[in-house]
């Protein structure tokens, strides 16, 4: 009997632990992001999280008088994180196109394109050259979606591989195991700057798209609050300042 008692008390302890975690702080603003996604959200030289999107989020949180919580997430678990209310929004170079119906969005704040990155000695210049080649995308990324939608192009590929994050994909590319990586242009440019003379971005884009802040479908009240602050930041020039700091020019599109 003793054994059963012990087991039951362990179970009770667990239930108490779970139940005790029930309440939710209202004065925080929890941003979920993929920390392997420079320059939007990543680990800076000082070891702290930094990036264009995170800086915008921090400014919004300050203006909303909420405490900013930066929560790195596993990218393919973002929906579960949102639905279980572990994060308030995904703010991370989050492409609206193709996901319009899945989240409650702010207005797009910047433009982006999906591009192919290739080794600069590969001789691959256009999408036609990708015939029978191996292409990598990040799992669950909008590059993956853009390629899946383009069945004609997809059929010419030798193989389409899904990587856990861009860095892995680019390492694969650099080592010669794959021939091209399909990814966000913004991130590609940043990575190219870090690894000079190894890669190049193909001139042909896969698709043009826009970034927004994604909230759980139906969470309009928080979306409106954030949207309002973004507009205010566009008006007083804060967006421009932050954009110039990260990209050297104003790339934001909120009016």
């Amino acid at each position: 009997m003793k054994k059963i008692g012990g087991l039951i008390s362990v179970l009770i302890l667990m239930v108490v632990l779970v139940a005790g975690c029930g309440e939710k702080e209202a004065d925080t603003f929890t941003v979920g992001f993929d920390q392997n996604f420079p320059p939007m959200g990543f680990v800076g030289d000082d070891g702290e999280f930094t990036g264009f999107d995170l800086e915008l989020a921090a400014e919004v949180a300050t203006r909303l008088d909420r405490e900013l919580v930066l929560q790195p997430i596993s990218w393919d678990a973002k929906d579960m994180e949102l639905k279980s209310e572990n994060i308030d929004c995904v703010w991370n170079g989050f492409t609206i196109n193709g996901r319009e119906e899945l989240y409650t969005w702010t207005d797009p704040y910047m433009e982006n394109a999906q591009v192919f990155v290739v080794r600069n000695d590969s001789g691959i210049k256009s999408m036609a050259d990708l015939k029978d080649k191996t292409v990598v995308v990040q799992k669950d990324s909008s590059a993956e979606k853009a390629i899946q939608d383009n069945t004609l192009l997809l059929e010419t590929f030798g193989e389409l591989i899904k990587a856990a994050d861009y860095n892995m994909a680019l390492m694969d590319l650099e080592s010669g195991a794959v021939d091209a990586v399909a990814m966000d242009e913004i991130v590609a440019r940043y990575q190219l700057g870090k690894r000079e003379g190894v890669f190049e971005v193909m001139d042909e884009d896969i698709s043009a798209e826009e970034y927004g802040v994604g909230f759980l479908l139906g969470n309009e009240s928080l979306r409106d609050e954030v949207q309002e602050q973004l507009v205010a930041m566009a008006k007083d020039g804060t967006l421009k300042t932050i954009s110039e700091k990260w990209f050297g020019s104003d790339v934001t599109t909120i009016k």
Partner: protein
Amino acid sequence: MNLYVLLSELGRGMLISIEIFVLTLIISLPLGLVIAFGRMAKQPVLRIFFKIYISIMRGTPLMLQLMVVYFGPYYLFGISLSRDYRFWAVIIGFGLNYAAYFAEIYRGGIESMPIGQYEAAKLLGYGKAQTFFRIILPQVIKRIIPAITNEVITLVKDTSLAFVISVTEMFTVAKAIASAQANMMPYVAAGIFYYIFNFVVATTMEKIEKKLSYYR
């Protein structure tokens, strides 16, 4: 990023890994013994329950179990969770999983004890609990230490699975720095960290093993 920042960031991640490691052992080593008893119980319902428990825990990926423990309360019962639960979900998931493995190791050890030992203890007037804790268990522990060491070392490396529910342990930190810096150094450093961690664990376990081999 200079080496100092790199190492201190990895060190921070390592602290999380160590926390997972220690807390998992604190939960799973005793829990494993309870499960082993359940698995060896004479009462068939109890025995079958634990048999199924062990079968599920060993038969499904730890990664999946972590997701179930973390997201389960919300998706199954509608309980919304706070930020702290993330870490505890990892501990509960790891604890339940490793307890199943430890249970089978304990069972192997306990069942390997000759029946004569029980008979002798009974003749000497030992009660059931006394027999187990004074006579059987010390010998069992001695026998199962190498198998336990195996699991414990695997646990060190398994801590990297915690990122599936976004707990930033060491390997996650290494990955993040590697993508921000676009170089391989963080991976190399992480490898060295893991090796040192395991070296300490293996050496400690060896010391314990030596200490327990008092009849040789």
